C-alpha cells in the first residue's frame, strides 16, 4: 500500500475545515462549532491509524515523502541550484507520539472552544485550524527550513487567538508572545542558515550524518556556538529561565482552549527541537554542555516550584508549574543516557496531557465562578464535586503519584541524572517535594479550603465537558500503568540518539 501522501493529508486536513468555514455565515454559531470540531477529526483518525500501523509491526518509513519544492538558481542559467528546499515529511517513533498528542489535544481543545469561546466563532476556528496545520507540520517536517516554516505558521494564529479572545491584558500578552517567539525563531533561522551554508543541506538526517563525520567542515567551536544558539531559540519556547516571562502572561491571559494547546503542544516544540536538533545533530557538544543544561534544569524546576508556592491565582500556579516541569525535561536530557532521555520524552507527553486537563478545568471554574483565585474558590468541592475530583486527580498526576504518567517520567529523568551527576540530581529532588507542596496547597485550598461563598448554585461538569476531562485522565492513567504504549514507539528513536551520543 502506498502511504506516501498520508502525512500530507494528515498535516493539511484542517485546511478543508478552514475552506468550509470561510463559506459559512458568521452568525450560525452551532454549525461553525460543529464544522470546527469535525475538521480536527481526520487528523486524529490518521494519527491513530499511524499509531496502530506501528503497533502492528509495520515500518514507519512507509510514510516518508520527499519532493523537490523550491530551487533558487543564480541568473543566467547556472545549472546547479543555488539553494533548494525539498518538501520532506516523515514519521519516526518520537514524532509519531507527538503527532498523536497534538491531534488528541487539538480535538479536545476544539471541544473546549465550543464551550468557552463566546464571540466570533468563525474567525476563532479558522485560526485554530491553521494553528493545527502548523503544529502537525512542525512535528513531521524532515528538513530544517520546512520545520521553520511550520514553526512560524504557528505564531500568527496564536497571536490572534490570544489577542482577540483572551482576558483583560490580552493584547500585551499577544505582543510579548509574538516578540519573544519571533526572536527565538530569528536565532533559529540564523542557525539553520549557517548549517546550510556550511553543509549544503537542511535535511535533518543528513545533517546528523555529516556532523558525525569527523571531517565535517565545521569546527568544534562553531558547533558549540550553534548548539548554544539552539538552546536559546528553543529555550524561549520551552521556556528556560530567564526567558520565560512571556509564557506567564500567555497562560494567564489567553482563553482556556488556547492555553490547552499552548501549554500542551506549543511548549513541547521547544523540547522536541532540543532533542531532535540539539541532541540529534550535535551530540558531542550536547555532552559538553550537559552540566550547564542540568543546572538550568534544576533552576527551572526550583524557580518554578518556589514561585508556584506563593501564587494566589491558580492559573499562575499552573503557569509556574509548567516552568518547573519543563525543568525535568532538561534534567532528563542532561543525563545523556537512555533512562534520562526517555524520562524527558515521557515528561513532554505526560505534561502535555496533564496541563491540558488542568487548564481545561481552570477554564470551567472560571466560567462558572468568574474567578480563578485560590482564596475565592475555597470549598468548591461542595458545589462541583466531579470537577473537584478531577482537579485533585490531575494535581496528583502532576506531582508524580505512582500509577499516573507524571510518576514514570519524573522517576526516569531523575534515575538518569543520578547515574551521571548525582549532586545536581540531589538538589533537584527538593523540587519534587516542592511540587507536592504547592500543588496540594493550591488544590486543597480550592476544593476543601475555607469557603467564602456558597457554590450551591453553580453547575458541575456535565455533558460534553466530561469528554475532554475523561479522555485526558484515561490517557494519563494508561501511560502510568502501561508505560509501554509510549516506550515501544520511542525505542528506535532512543537507540538512534544513544548511538549518536556513544559514537
Amino acid at each position, binding site marked *: 500500500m502506498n502511504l506516501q501522501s498520508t502525512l500530507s493529508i494528515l498535516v493539511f486536513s484542517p485546511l478543508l475545515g478552514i475552506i468550509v468555514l470561510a463559506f459559512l455565515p458568521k452568525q450560525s454559531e452551532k454549525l461553525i462549532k460543529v464544522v470546527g470540531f469535525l475538521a480536527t477529526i481526520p487528523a486524529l483518525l490518521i494519527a491513530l491509524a499511524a499509531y496502530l500501523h506501528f503497533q502492528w509491526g509495520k515500518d514507519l518509513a512507509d510514510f516518508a515523502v520527499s519532493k523537490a*519544492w*523550491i*530551487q*533558487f*538558481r*543564480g*541568473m*543566467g*542559467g*547556472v545549472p546547479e541550484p*543555488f*539553494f533548494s528546499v525539498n518538501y520532506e515529511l516523515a514519521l519516526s517513533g518520537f514524532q509519531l507520539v507527538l503527532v498523536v498528542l497534538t491531534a488528541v489535544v487539538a480535538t479536545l481543545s476544539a471541544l473546549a472552544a465550543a464551550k468557552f469561546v463566546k464571540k466570533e466563532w468563525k474567525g476563532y476556528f479558522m485560526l485554530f485550524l491553521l494553528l493545527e496545520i502548523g503544529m502537525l507540520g512542525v512535528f513531521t517536517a524532515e528538513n530544517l*527550513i520546512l520545520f*521553520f*516554516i*511550520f514553526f*512560524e*505558521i504557528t*505564531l*500568527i494564529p496564536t*497571536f*490572534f487567538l490570544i*489577542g*482577540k479572545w483572551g482576558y483583560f491584558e*490580552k*493584547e500585551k500578552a499577544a*505582543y510579548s508572545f*509574538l*516578540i519573544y517567539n*519571533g*526572536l527565538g525563531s*530569528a536565532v533559529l*533561522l*540564523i542557525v539553520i*542558515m*549557517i548549517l*546550510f*551554508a556550511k553543509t549544503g543541506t537542511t535535511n535533518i538526517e543528513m545533517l546528523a550524518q555529516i556532523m558525525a563525520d569527523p571531517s565535517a567542515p565545521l569546527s568544534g567551536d562553531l558547533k558549540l556556538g550553534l548548539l548554544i544558539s539552539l538552546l536559546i531559540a528553543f529555550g524561549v519556547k520551552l521556556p528556560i529561565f530567564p526567558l520565560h516571562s512571556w509564557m506567564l502572561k500567555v497562560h494567564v491571559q489567553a482563553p482556556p482552549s488556547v492555553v490547552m494547546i499552548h501549554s500542551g503542544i506549543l511548549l513541547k516544540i521547544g523540547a522536541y527541537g532540543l532533542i531532535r536538533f540539539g541532541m540529534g545533530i550535535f551530540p558531542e557538544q550536547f555532552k559538553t554542555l550537559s552540566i550547564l543544561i542540568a543546572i538550568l534544569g534544576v533552576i527551572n524546576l526550583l524557580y518554578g516550584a518556589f514561585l508556584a508556592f506563593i501564587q494566589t491565582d491558580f492559573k499562575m500556579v499552573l503557569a509556574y508549574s509548567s516552568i518547573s516541569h519543563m525543568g525535568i525535561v532538561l534534567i532528563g536530557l542532561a543525563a545523556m543516557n537512555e533512562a534520562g532521555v526517555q524520562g524527558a520524552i515521557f515528561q513532554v507527553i505526560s505534561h502535555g496531557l496533564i496541563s491540558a486537563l488542568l487548564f481545561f478545568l481552570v477554564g470551567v471554574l472560571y466560567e462558572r465562578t468568574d474567578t480563578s483565585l485560590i482564596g475565592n474558590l475555597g470549598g468548591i468541592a461542595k458545589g462541583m464535586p466531579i470537577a473537584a475530583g478531577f482537579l485533585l486527580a490531575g494535581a496528583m498526576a502532576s506531582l508524580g503519584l505512582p500509577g499516573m504518567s507524571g510518576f514514570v517520567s519524573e522517576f526516569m529523568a531523575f534515575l538518569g541524572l543520578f547515574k551521571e551527576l548525582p549532586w545536581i540530581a540531589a538538589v533537584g529532588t527538593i523540587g519534587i517535594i516542592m511540587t507536592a507542596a504547592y500543588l496540594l496547597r493550591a488544590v486543597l485550598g480550592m476544593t476543601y479550603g475555607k469557603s467564602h461563598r456558597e457554590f450551591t448554585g453553580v453547575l458541575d461538569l456535565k455533558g460534553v465537558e466530561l469528554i475532554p476531562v475523561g479522555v485526558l485522565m484515561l490517557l494519563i492513567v494508561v501511560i502510568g500503568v502501561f508505560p509501554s504504549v509510549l516506550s515501544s514507539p520511542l525505542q528506535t528513536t532512543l537507540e538512534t540518539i544513544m548511538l549518536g551520543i556513544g559514537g
Partner: protein
Amino acid sequence: MSLETLSEFNWSVMTPEFIILGVIALLTLLDLFMPKRIDRRILGWLSIAGIIAAMAALFSLLGTEPTSILYDTFTLDMFGKSFKLLLLAGAGLVMFLAVSYDAKEGMEDYRGEFYYLFLTALLGAMFMTSSGDLITLFIGLELLSISSYILAGIKKHNLKSNESAMKYVINGSIATAITLFGMSYVYGLTGSTNLAEIANKLSAVVDGQHTYLLGLAFLMIFVGLSFKLASAPFHMWAPDVYQGAPTPVTAFLSVVSKTAGFVIVIRILISVFFNAAPSGDGGSILFKMHDYLAFLAAVTMIIGNVVALKQTNIKRMFAYSSIAHAGYLLVALTTLSANLIFSVWFYLLAYMLMNLGAFAVIQVVTEKTGSAEIADFAGLYRRSPVLAVTMGILLVSLAGFPGTAGFIGKLNIFVGAFYGEPHYVLASIMIATTVVSYFYYFGVMTQMFFRPAREESKFNLPFGIIVVLIVAVVGSVLFGVAPNIALDFLNKM
C-alpha cells in the same frame, strides 16, 4: 548619422518604449482637445491599455538574444527584460489605483496630467533598465525624477501636497548633483560614457591615486542614488513626501521609483565597478567598498524599522517601512552573492505586490475617513472583513512570515548573506530588525482586528481597487507557496 544607418538598427527591441511614448503623445493631445466636462478618468484607462500593450510587446521580445542598438546606448538583455517587466507591472497596478482615486480637493482641473505623468516617469525608468551609457542612464533618471516631482505636488491647492513636492524637488536636486559629480570623476578617469568601455578601462587602473579617486566617485554616485532607493543617508524625504503626496503617487514612489533606483545602482555597481582597479590583495574597488555598503545597509534597516515604531500616520509608517525594505535589499547588494540580481528581482516583485496591495487598502480607508491615522483602521474587520483580511495577509507578507512572497524574498537574501564569505553581523541585524518590524505591522493588525470601530459605515470598493487587491493577494500567496513559478520564468528569459 545618415538615414541609412538609422534604419539598420533593430528598432523592434524598443517596441515597449515606443508604445508608452505613443500613448503619452496621444493622451497629451486628447487632454488638450477634449472638452472640459468630460471626465479625464478615461485617460487613465487608456494608460492602462497602453501599459498592457507594452507588456505584451515585451513578452514577445522575451526570446530575443541580448541586442544593442544606437551605438550601445540601448541594450535589451535579460537584466533589462526582467526589470522592465517589474516596472510595467508595478506602474499598471498604480494606474488602477489612480483611476480609483478621488482627490476630494485641489485637483479636479489637472486630472489629465495626473495620468500621463505616471507614464513619462515609467518611460524614464524603462530607459534606465536598458541603457548602456551614463548619459542615457542619467536622462532616464531625470525623466523619472521630474515627473515624480510634479506628481507629488499635483494637488495644487493642498498645503501638504505642496510641501511634499517642495521637499522632494530640493532633496532630489541635491542628490542628483552629487551623483553627477561622482559620474564626472568616472568620466575624467576613462574619457568615456559608455558603461562597457568604462568597465574595460577601469579594470586597468592600478595607480594608487586613481584608485582613491575612483573610491570617492563610487561613494558619491552611490550616496546620490540612495535618494531614489530611499535608503540612508538620503532617506529623510520619504516620510514627508509619502504623507503629503496623493496615495497613488506615494504607491508609485515606493514601488516603481524604488525599483528604478535599484536598477541604476545594480547597473553602475556591477557593470562599472565590479572589476574596477583590481589589486592583488582585496579584489576590485567594489569589494573594498564593501564595508561602507554594509554599514549603510545596516543603518538603513535600523532607522527604517525603529522609527516606524513611533509613527501614528499610516503613510509615514509605510515610508519608514519602505526605508527598511530598501535596507534589506541593500543587504543583497552588499553580499554580492551569485544570485544577487535574482534575489533583488524577486524581492522587488514581492515588495511590489504587498506594498501596492497595502496602499490600495490605505487609499480606500483614508478616502473614507479623511485622515491617514493608524487609529482610523480600528474595527476595520467589522466594517469590511474583506479589506481587513486582505490587509492582514499583505502585512504578514511585509513582516516576512512563511507562506508569503515576502518570506521567500527575505530567505533568498538571507541565503546569499551566508554563502561564500558569511556576513554574520549584517544577517543578524537584518533578522533582528525584522522582528522589530513585527511591532508596527502587527500594530495595524491590532487596530483592524481587536479594537472597536469608531463608526460602522461600510465600504464601497471601486473596480480598480478590487483588481489591485486580487493581484496583490493572489501573487503574494502564490509566490510564497510556489516561488519556482517566478524563478523558472526568469530562467527561461
